[in-house]
């Protein structure tokens, strides 16, 4: 868990405390779990010592499986997927200015308690975001939603939603006949969930919960898995369970994954760590000297991303792409100019650039700024994030070669968040989530809409640029893909040239699989979705690909 935090906040999202792991006990060997037919699918999505019964899809600590396997979205879309997949909705239309969306729903879907799924449920869910803002996890600017008939729902927004189609589509729908009576949707643990999904909660204990297939599921034919098992495992036990083959599907950091995991059964076992986010050296661009793009450029040139990738990340995750976009997920969004771009280290160029910009090298090997300040900066990082600690040590060595002194300081996570959000830093490290689209990522790294006198919630380097804002607005105001790509091209160029952040490495989407019982997992050769079992809505797609092993 400690290591994974660096990578996908999605793991932490659903409760950093939760873990799942697997032990398929002796009773399950050779014949199944009592049905006598099919092996259960044992999943480790997150480390947890014990589970607390919580299947509320709005809760940050909801148990894995609730989202996707019990509650389903209107349209499933993920950066790693080529096309959005219609799910509870069959189609969607925008009005001209993009402020109203009309969904046409799938017919014949029922809730697991037998009630029909209707447009009223969808309208209720979106109206809930208005009534209970805390449930509005995607921050959608909903004004009102209404069912115009059983299968049609209209949703009004206060802004054009062209750029947020995926976010709206991924909204999980809850049944009105149950949630209307819930007094406080954020404080309900929803112990016996009723959803439209392929699975029903079967059994819950603090160490293990299981889900069994919903035979009345609207697409029951597409799902071959009969039972899901989520045993509780901590980091330690996860690795040993993984090693002993008790887990079919997992998403967690495993040191020496080749030796510990794959080597035991190379035919069945594998891992795939596609880029799922970005880890950057984050300068405070509102304060001297890091308001100087040349200095940021020099840092970028001086940085040895290969070494960081190899040493800190054991080579599991590649250096960042100069556009900052995770690969291969956003490969198709690259402008032609940057399609083949890659970083290479050039210490000499970095030194020249710094000399040129007036940062004079001192006798002690440390430069001074034009203001005469020695270029020595503390680098605060959460003290228990091992990979960042290692990265910071490497940066010390790398930047020393260009006369910039870095002093890593381990602080508590809270303290780091505080410093980062309030801008009281010169340099720090931050992570950017992959979001729903490249637009999402750039918005969170360059938009001035996050500017604030106090703490900011995004754009931690406080990079404010009119051109970037204009490009973001252009993107959001159109449904035309070509126009959107043009805006993206602009954003990519600004990002590459201005370096609002200094990208270091991609953060991986941790995913290991064992095809002893089930096969069909995505991998490098067949990257149809992210593989991590905590990744939504990708898990729904993965599930449909799984077939019993031969």
């Amino acid at each position, binding site marked *: 868990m*400690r290591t994974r935090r660096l990578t996908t*906040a*999605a793991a*932490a*999202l659903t*409760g*950093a*405390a939760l873990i799942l792991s697997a*032990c*398929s*006990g*002796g*009773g*399950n060997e050779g014949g199944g779990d009592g049905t006598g037919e099919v092996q259960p699918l044992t999943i480790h999505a997150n480390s947890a*010592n*014990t589970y*607390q*019964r*919580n299947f*509320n899809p709005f*809760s*940050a*600590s909801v148990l894995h499986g609730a989202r996707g396997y019990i509650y389903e979205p209107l349209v499933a879309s993920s950066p790693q997927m080529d096309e959005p997949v219609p799910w509870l909705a069959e189609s969607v239309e925008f009005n001209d200015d993009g402020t109203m969306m009309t969904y046409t729903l799938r017919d014949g879907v029922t809730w697991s308690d037998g009630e029909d799924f209707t447009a009223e449920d969808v309208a209720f869910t979106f109206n809930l975001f208005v009534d*209970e*803002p*805390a449930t*509005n*996890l*995607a*921050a959608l600017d909903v004004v009102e939603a209404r069912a115009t008939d059983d299968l049609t729902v209209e949703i009004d927004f206060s802004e054009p939603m062209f750029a947020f189609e995926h976010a709206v589509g991924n909204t999980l729908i809850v049944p009105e006949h149950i949630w209307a009576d819930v007094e*406080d949707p*954020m*404080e*309900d*643990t929803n112990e016996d969930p009723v959803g439209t999904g392929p699975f029903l909660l079967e059994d819950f*204990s*603090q*160490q*293990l919960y299981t889900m069994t297939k919903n035979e009345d599921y609207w697409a029951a034919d597409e799902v071959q898995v009969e039972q899901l098992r989520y*045993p*509780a*495992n*901590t980091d*330690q*036990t996860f690795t*040993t*369970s993984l090693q002993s083959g008790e887990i079919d599907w997992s998403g967690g950091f495993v040191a020496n994954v080749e030796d510990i995991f794959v080597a035991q059964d190379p035919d069945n076992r594998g891992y795939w760590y596609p880029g799922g986010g970005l880890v950057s050296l984050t300068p405070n661009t509102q304060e001297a000297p890091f308001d100087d793009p040349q200095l940021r450029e020099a840092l970028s040139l001086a940085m040895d991303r290969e070494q960081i990738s190899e040493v800190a990340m054991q080579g599991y995750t590649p250096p960042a792409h100069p556009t900052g976009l995770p690969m291969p997920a956003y490969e198709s969004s690259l402008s032609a100019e940057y399609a083949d771009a890659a970083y290479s280290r050039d210490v000499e160029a970095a030194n020249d650039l710094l000399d040129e910009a007036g940062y004079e090298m001192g006798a002690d090997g440390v430069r001074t700024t034009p203001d005469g300040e020695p270029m020595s900066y503390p680098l605060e990082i959460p003290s*228990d994030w091992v990979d960042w600690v290692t990265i910071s040590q490497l940066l010390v060595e790398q930047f020393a070669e260009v006369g910039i002194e870095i002093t890593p300081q381990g602080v*508590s*996570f*809270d*303290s780091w*968040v*505080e410093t980062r959000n309030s801008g009281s830093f010169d340099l720090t490290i931050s992570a950017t*989530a992959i*979001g729903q689209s490249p637009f999402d990522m750039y918005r*969170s790294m360059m938009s001035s809409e996050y500017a604030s006198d106090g*703490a900011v*919630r*995004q754009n931690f380097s406080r990079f404010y640029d009119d051109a970037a804002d204009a490009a973001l607005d252009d993107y959001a105001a159109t449904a035309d893909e070509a126009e959107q790509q043009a805006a993206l091209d602009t954003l990519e160029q600004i990002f590459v040239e201005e370096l609002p952040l200094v990208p270091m490495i991609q953060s991986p989407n941790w995913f290991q699989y064992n095809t002893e019982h089930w096969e069909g997992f995505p991998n490098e050769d067949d990257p149809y979705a992210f593989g991590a079992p905590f990744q939504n809505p990708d898990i729904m797609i993965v599930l449909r690909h799984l077939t019993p092993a031969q």
Partner: protein
Amino acid sequence: MKYLLRKVALYAFIAWSAITLNFLIPRLMPGDPVTLLVERMEGRIEPEAMAAIAESYGITDDPLHVQYWTYLGNLFQGDLGLSIGFHPTPVAEIVMGALPWTLGLVGITTIISFVIGTGLGVVLAWRRGSWSDHALPTLTFLNAVPYFWMALILVLVFSVNLGVFPVAGAYDVNIDRAWSWEFVSSVLYYGTLPAITIVIASFAGWVLNMRNMTVTVLGEDFVTLAEAKGLPKRMVLVNYAARNAILPSVTGFALALGAVVGGSMLTEVIFNYPGVGYTLFQAVQNHDFPLMQGLFLIISLAVIVANLLADIVYIFLDPRTRAEA
């Protein structure tokens, strides 16, 4: 009686201090749970939603003393708030889920190690000057071994290499949780290695303590007189020496409960044992303020109650305290 009242008053004060400290620490330290929660949600939350979340977590801008009274009021209703890490599960529920495991594992092993330790301590004291003195360096070494390191080594040897014991957990998750022999034996089987770790790492301290106390008491006139009375050795040792030497250990035992709950924390973490220690560890890692506070409070109160019980037991063990009353 007065002795007891004084003790009760002292412990009441300590309990109040713990409660107040518990209230103050998170408020004096940096970090804001809502920001941290939003951090987990990848910051996709709008400001108004943040306000709503803050409200749902009971975080307000009220002056400190108002918050304090609310806090006390809630506390007396058994309301420790909602966990952040397991939101919206109530803290009390999580604590109650974890407590039995710790009480079972740590409680039993502490008693075992106390019994073994004091027993051995008496024997070593009685036989001092002989081969038994050579056991002392070994015991000091055992006493200094970090719990968690010992646990790791034991896991490595017995679980990973030999496969004699399960690596972790409290029971086989494939067994139904019921009062069946199958379940109980699984709990015992899974608890064996953690228990062994705790006992090995903690019994040496008791031995050393008890040996020193017994040796000191053995020099007292009444022990010499007991011997001069022609009483059998065992009687002298048990009724005269050990009976008096154990008195300081009783208080120590109660105090140690606190240390053991803490010390066993690392053991619980390593063995993935679903007890209070591991839950506290998780709470700290998740920056789960309410859970942290709740756990710390429960542990403190448990230790305070244990101390009070020890003092009551002491009254029975040492008639002199009754005179002080």
